[in-house]
């Protein structure tokens, strides 16, 4: 199937009322990340902190189609996925602050966010496993005859990893209900994908596994929404997995506090900043008269408050008790 045919098969645009939900979601991620970046500078976050600034459209566009029973598996850059899947800013911020009220009760931190109650099955400090685990969720859902889907979010860096190859092939041969969402932000830390991959395209890798694949503008929330909608529909109706390459860019450093020079030019950063997914979507909403400026300003203020309150909540939350440190290793005993 060509990309074009695939596009025609895609689900429709969001319903009007969903358009504002998308905007709210984009902002929730952006403001939370900016809050985390500030908190990191203040020493309130203890380990690494990889923000999702510039890539918000992807988690937002994909997760808009998901139910709590759908299972999301993510990476080191996973705050946005957790938020979009329904983990509250409170729980995310508190987790990064290392507090007992965090979504992993302080055991996880930035790279280990869990809330199975809403289908957030974890972020991972290791590149690769999320692809396999999403495939496994697909296996469960198929075996259990449910209509749920498994979703893996991963970076371009994971594409060169054996987990990508094995996971996509397994999902293909058993036609599992899985979405493989590659967030191609052109770099793995400072190593360009164009250097590290013999084939610098991801969206054309589907045929190597006999699965559908497509490339979309990852900074365009509506484009992501459309492609993901079609893929979710395919998955739920038993037609198997889809690989979606979302071309995007992270506009902050790889992780907070790290240098952000020497490997990419200021022009490149500026060009991508001009394609900011939130600014552009805001403009689209206004241009298409889907919302007036007051509505948007109100949403912005509301989200700001939610995030500020989340940081406050996190700061005031208790630390986990050292006595509990050996709990949860096993379910039994």
């Amino acid at each position, binding site marked *: 199937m060509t990309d074009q045919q695939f596009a025609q098969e895609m689900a429709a645009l969001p319903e009007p009322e969903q358009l504002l939900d998308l905007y709210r979601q984009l902002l929730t991620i952006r403001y939370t990340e900016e809050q985390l970046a500030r908190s990191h500078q203040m020493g309130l976050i203890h380990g690494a902190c990889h923000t999702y600034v510039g890539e918000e459209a992807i988690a937002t566009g994909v997760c808009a189609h998901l139910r709590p029973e759908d*299972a999301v*598996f993510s990476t080191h850059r996973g705050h946005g996925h957790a938020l979009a899947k329904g983990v509250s800013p409170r729980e995310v911020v508190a987790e990064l602050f290392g507090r007992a009220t965090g979504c992993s009760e302080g055991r996880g931190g930035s790279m280990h966010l*869990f809330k199975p109650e809403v289908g957030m099955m*974890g972020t991972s400090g290791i590149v690769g*496993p999320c692809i396999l685990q999403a495939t496994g969720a697909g296996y469960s859902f198929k075996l259990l005859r449910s209509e749920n889907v498994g979703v893996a979010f991963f970076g371009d860096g994971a594409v060169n990893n054996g987990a990508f190859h*094995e996971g996509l092939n397994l999902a293909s041969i058993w036609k599992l209900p899985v979405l493989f969402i590659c967030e191609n932000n052109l770099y793995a830390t400072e190593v360009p994908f164009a250097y590290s991959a013999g084939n610098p395209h991801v969206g054309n890798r589907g045929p190597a596994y006999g699965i559908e694949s497509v490339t979309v503008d990852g900074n365009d929330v509506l484009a992501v929404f459309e492609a993901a909608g079609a893929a979710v529909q395919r998955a739920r109706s038993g037609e198997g997995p889809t690989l979606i390459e979302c071309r995007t860019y992270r506009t902050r450093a790889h992780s907070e506090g790290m240098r952000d020079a020497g490997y990419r030019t200021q022009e490149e950063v500026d060009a991508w900043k001009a394609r900011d997914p939130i600014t552009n979507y805001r403009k689209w909403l206004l241009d298409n008269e889907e919302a007036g400026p007051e509505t948007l300003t109100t949403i912005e203020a509301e989200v700001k408050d939610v995030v500020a309150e989340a940081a406050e909540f996190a700061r005031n939350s208790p630390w986990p008790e050292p006595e509990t440190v050996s709990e949860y290793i096993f379910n039994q005993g």
Partner: protein
Amino acid sequence: MRELTYVEATLEALDSAMARDRSIFVVGEGIGERGGNFNTTTGLYAKYGPERLCDTPISERGFVGMCAGAAMTGTRPVVDFMFIDFILDAFGELVNQIAKMQYMSSGRIRMPIVLRGAIGIGHAAATHHSGSYYPIFAHIPGFRVVVPAIPSDAKGLFTTALKSEDPVLFLEHKSLLFNRGEVPEGDYEIPFGEARIAREGADCTVVAIGSMVDRTLSECEKLAEEGISVEVIDPRTIAPLDMATIMESVHKTGRLLIVDETFQPCGVGAEIAAQVIDAGFDDLDAPIRRLNGAHVPTPYSPPLEHSITPQPNEIEQSVRDLLAE
């Protein structure tokens, strides 16, 4: 009581569990219609079909990681590795994901996965098909590690494994697979962390693991004729390890030998010895001795291969040496 082979015993446990619990499925290479390289799934494909007896590509990392995701989302995978050596390609998934998942998620995600495979030296299988590696899994927090020595234990422990919410490594020594023994009918569970006293005795304690249990028992019969009374303990699970039973025995005998086919450095014998010397220092009348497989990759040629596992005469001599101390 009727007799079954070790493999028939685990097959009975698996069949019964799969009949009872539709969320159990098995993955592996040749475990579908073929019934498994070691007949571990014979006949099940016809009963439960290809989704529940799922032949895989040679993607060990892939299907282990996949099964982790499945275990996290409501099903109960059993990974059948054929030779356990192939698990090494999935080691990252095991250590960083499977073992840690319950902890990282503060207990809200479960990891009911069983990883099974044939271990051990023998049959000139050479160094890529002779590994055991259980001391490594006992070192890592988060695994149950099961090494049954007789068919009835294999069935009871496998039943427990198939009901466990925790990741279980179920390791079956190749030289035991077709041994016969009495096996009770029907379902029964043997809890993890309870050693079996394979033989009672008063003069010396021998902890023997896996294929070393039978080898030790035969020597004990000979020694008994001379009036030397050896107590033989089969831990059955390496993690959790039933130190209470071992401690109690050493309290009685004052002497301890550990016989294990796997490598000595940082092995199970080391851990047992270290715990006994810490908590049972005053009980000991002699040094603690270990007999292990040689610290060498497994050679192919039979005379070389034979020379690297603890032999009956070495077991006997070690007991005599301890009694002479």
